[in-house]
């Protein structure tokens, strides 16, 4: 991992964007890295796009805002449109190809089309689309140990939602497989 990684996660409210970002911040904290999570909390969360920024670093984090992201995760087209020009040239972009059929030109060195909704539906629950995306993200970035992510998921779901653990883990594994198979990436 680089000394500091700027991540932007964006989508519709309800797509699990905030949880996606928080899981990265929790995982970083557990692995004794520095982490900072900033949500968008404006009126845009009602019906429009919701987004959050995460910074993961090996040293204390200064500025909580950044100009360009090293990693962009876009769950819908408006989010991709909003942030496509705010990605570093050597950055990685993952987009939800179930909803984004025509992504257009993206000037990042790695672009991954992840059919997150379709894979989640095939697993039986659309709500784990964010975990499919998370699996792909973790696989392509090589961030965090699988055990860390599993532990964080367990903590966030808690006892009340413990029964959802298997499907969430299956979704993360399916997301990882998409990247391993390399089917939908292009440079």
């Amino acid at each position, binding site marked *: 991992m680089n000394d500091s990684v700027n991540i932007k996660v964006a989508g519709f409210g309800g797509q699990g964007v905030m949880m996606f970002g928080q899981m990265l*911040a929790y995982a970083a*904290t557990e692995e004794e890295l520095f*982490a*900072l*999570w900033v*949500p968008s*909390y404006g*009126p845009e969360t009602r019906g429009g796009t919701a987004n959050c920024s995460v910074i993961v670093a090996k040293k204390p984090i*200064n500025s*909580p805002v950044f100009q360009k992201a090293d990693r962009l995760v876009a769950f819908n087209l408006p989010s991709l449109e909003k942030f496509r020009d705010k990605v570093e040239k050597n950055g990685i972009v993952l987009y939800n190809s179930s909803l984004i059929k025509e992504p257009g030109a993206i000037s990042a060195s790695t672009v991954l089309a992840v059919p997150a909704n379709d894979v989640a539906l095939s697993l039986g629950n659309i709500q784990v689309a964010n975990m499919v995306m998370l699996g792909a993200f973790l696989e392509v970035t090589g961030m965090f140990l699988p055990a860390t992510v599993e532990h964080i998921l367990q903590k966030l779901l808690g006892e009340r939602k413990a029964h959802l653990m298997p499907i969430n883990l299956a979704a993360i594994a399916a997301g990882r497989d998409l990247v391993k198979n390399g089917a939908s990436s292009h440079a």
Partner: protein
Amino acid sequence: MANKVLMKGNEAIALAAVKGGVEAYFGYPITPQNEVSEYLSKYMFEQGRVFLQAESEVAAINMVYGAAASGKRVMTSSSSPGIALKQEGISYLAGSELPAVIVSVMRGGPGLGGIQPSQADYYQATRGGGNGDYHTIVFAPESIQETVDVMKEAFDVADYYRNPVMVLVDGLIGQMMEAVDFNRPVTKRFLPPKDWAAGGMNGHSGRNTICSLYLDPYELEAHNLKLQKKYQAAIQNETKFELVNMEDPDYVIVAYGTMARVVRSAIEILTKKKLNVGMIRPISVWPFPKAPFKAINRNCKGILVCEMSLGQMLDDVRIMNNGALPVGFFGRAGGIVPEPEEVVDAILHFEQRRVD
């Protein structure tokens, strides 16, 4: 970082208040500080302490007055327009010498403004909108860790001076998440017993009266002079600041809170451009630090004040600089958190930023 927990700023403020011994909380909802109340509504109940959502901000601050008068550790929290409504109560707290902690999570103004992060309530915090010759001791931390450390100490500072203490952060610190350690040591202070409190007659004869009304002008002047003595002591003992890279800098930036963190990143970029830029970061904004301005090297080319407002702390920097060095200003308003590159640009074009 084993004993650190990842937490939202507002929730960390609430838990830090509990660690600081808060016995009663009175508040009224407003974005972006609602998680403070949300967290305390559960926690205070479980701890057998007082949580009350008042019918208005005015009611809440006056409940703070009442509970503080009874000798309890009390707090309230709000955001810009809400803090505006509390100003009368804050003046009464100061006049009646009542300790209380007020958390102000700033958003863009004026009026209802917006809900995004801002530092446009610097005047409101350090000058106050209440009447009379009074001061509120104001701490303006830059991270969730520092906010927690300051919160824990704020109750002691309030009790020590028998004066309201404000913890001033912007909406970003309230909304973001960072890892925080709640067990860092707090400076131990000798706190005299609250024998002045209107907490019942046990242990003393005669009645304790809490009020800010002195109809005899000589008596009121004496009261004012007594308050001033406390403020002088606070200036001596509570002034807090951090110096970053202040050995022979080409330029000095003055910034606090979130803005200071953006400046830290800007300084890193400027260092790569072979420009030596330092920062004076006030942690207490009242009292405002004086000593670091006296210590700036005279060949320094200028002081750039950076704020998430259109220039409020700028006044204090001008007072401390007293015409010695050129002063420039960079600020964004309305809820925009500037990016480090904007600060870099302001330093590179310092002459265009001059306001002296």
